[in-house]
């Protein structure tokens, strides 16, 4: 079959087209859809319309204190209370970070929950997490929580190999704990562990049918929520993938065949195959309203959807900040570092080097217009202006960007690269004459600017480098 070649004439415009509708610099770039998405399910085309996202009440939920804490030594109570306080600041008045969950097993777990609630924040709402055994449910009642997650593992790996149940025993056991929750007036959130490796038709859907039947007997605020747990990171976002790994099909079956509404569906992922963030966003697009995440993706093994990534995705999908205080992300990252949690330098949005360029040609672009090499207005959104790291590749352009940022100069006040040439020469000599192999530190640059640009130093000097 031959395909007709379509000509593409050049649009020779006088003014640049910066695609502002998508790349409005003050926000993370918008994700704009131009059509519905079609997935073939059980041989039939099924339509999903991601253009409804701005109107849907999608939210982010947090499991930093539960799954996040499973991957590290325990936080102190004070640390958790401070993190919770900052999560609330990030969440904003609309509750974009809608809920966070707490272990309830130790005295410290319960004390932490109490102190977080004493702060009086509306969001994130505090919920619990227990195994699906009646003995654990007592902890939820004692803590006075209105909602708790409970582990309801649903693959045969877990039912047969871990729990030593058969499917009917597992289903009856889970339902008895759900019953106990409903009787006590606590909303159950069933965490369907290992759903992407489960028998969907043979266990998952019958179990959810039972949960929906139970939900019909109780008031709306007690109806069962479903968390789809991609425990091993096997979930896939690609169209055409078969169950149980297909995220679109999983959500379709539960949402439209079982009738679980979107506001009672939540996605919980893991990053074993580097798919964790996109899988979470895919769940949003196909009908889950809640995306469960952890700060900086810390979580069991390879981690969970990074909360700050979900925040950026949220803004990109909604096209609005939605009340989020995104500068709290930077404060949270600084705090995590201060308590010994490593964040790689090149980690998106919060790594020390996430918006730092090293190449002179990129620095030249930054010098002319920071939009050329900065992903969005990182100074406004994250309190982190773009930076240059000084190496042999930086050139006079890189040195000029560093000096202007150091002196906080903008517009016509900015010092051009000709004026900083003594520092640029000194930098290059470190590598060409002295054989240096490491980046020039901010402290060294500060000293050299003072020595080699004394006039500018006297005019613009500031105490010392404090913000990296």
């Amino acid at each position, binding site marked *: 079959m031959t395909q007709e070649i379509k000509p593409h004439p050049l649009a020779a415009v006088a003014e640049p087209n910066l695609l502002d509708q998508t790349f409005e610099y003050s926000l993370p770039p918008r994700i704009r859809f131009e059509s519905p998405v079609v997935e073939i399910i059980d041989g039939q085309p099924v339509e999903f319309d991601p253009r409804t996202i701005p109107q849907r009440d999608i939210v982010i939920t947090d499991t930093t204190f539960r799954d996040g804490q499973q991957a590290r030594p325990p936080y102190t109570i004070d640390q958790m209370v401070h993190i919770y306080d900052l999560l609330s600041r990030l969440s904003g008045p609309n509750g974009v970070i809608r809920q966070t969950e707490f272990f309830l097993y130790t005295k410290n777990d319960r004390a932490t929950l109490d102190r977080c609630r004493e702060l009086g924040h509306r969001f994130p709402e505090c919920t619990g997490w227990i195994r699906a055994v009646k003995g654990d449910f007592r902890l939820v009642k004692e803590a006075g929580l209105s909602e708790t997650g409970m582990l309801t593992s649903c693959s045969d790996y877990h039912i047969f190999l871990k729990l030593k149940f058969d499917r009917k025993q597992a289903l009856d056991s889970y339902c008895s704990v759900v019953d106990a929750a409903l009787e006590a007036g606590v909303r159950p959130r069933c965490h369907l562990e290992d759903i992407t490796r489960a028998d969907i038709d043979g266990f998952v859907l019958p179990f959810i049918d039972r949960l929906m039947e139970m939900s019909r007997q109780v008031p709306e605020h007690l109806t069962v929520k479903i968390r789809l747990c991609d425990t091993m990171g096997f979930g896939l976002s690609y169209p055409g993938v078969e169950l149980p790994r297909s995220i679109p099909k999983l959500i379709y079956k539960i949402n439209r065949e079982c009738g679980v509404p979107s506001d009672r569906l939540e996605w919980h992922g893991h990053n074993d195959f580097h798919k964790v963030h996109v899988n979470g966003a895919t769940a949003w697009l196909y009908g889950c309203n809640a995306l469960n995440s952890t700060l900086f993706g810390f979580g069991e093994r390879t981690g969970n959807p990074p909360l700050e990534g979900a925040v950026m995705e949220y803004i990109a999908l909604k096209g609005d900040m939605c009340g989020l205080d995104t500068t709290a992300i930077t404060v949270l990252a600084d705090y995590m570092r201060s308590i010994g949690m490593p964040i790689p330098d090149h980690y998106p949005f919060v790594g020390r080097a996430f918006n730092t360029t090293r190449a002179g040609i990129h620095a030249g672009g930054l010098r002319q217009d920071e939009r050329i090499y900065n992903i969005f207005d990182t100074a406004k959104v994250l309190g982190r202006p773009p930076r240059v790291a000084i190496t042999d590749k930086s050139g006079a352009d890189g040195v000029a960007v560093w000096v202007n940022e150091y002196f906080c100069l903008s517009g016509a006040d900015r010092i051009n690269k*000709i004026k900083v040439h003594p520092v640029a*020469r000194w930098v290059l000599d470190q590598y060409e004459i002295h054989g240096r192999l490491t980046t020039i530190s901010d402290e060294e640059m500060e000293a050299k600017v003072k020595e080699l640009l004394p006039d500018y130093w006297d005019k613009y000097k500031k105490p010392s480098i404090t913000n990296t």
Partner: protein
Amino acid sequence: MEKGEIQERVIKVVSNVLKVDPSMVEPDSNFVFDLGAESTQSVQLVAAFEEEFNVEMDNEAALSIQTVGGAVDFITRYVQ
């Protein structure tokens, strides 16, 4: 200032900054290909010309000059 004097002083500056013998610097010498100027040295040259002739030049235009003769013509516009 006479153009001949400007050329003489330009050659002196080029010779100092690029560390080449003045006899090798001719009006049609290309800064990069004939005299081996690197990126940072181009910036140093512009700064040295500004200092030598006590002028403030359009930096981007100055950095686009490729030959010694071009620099002489460019500087002549500022000093006359």
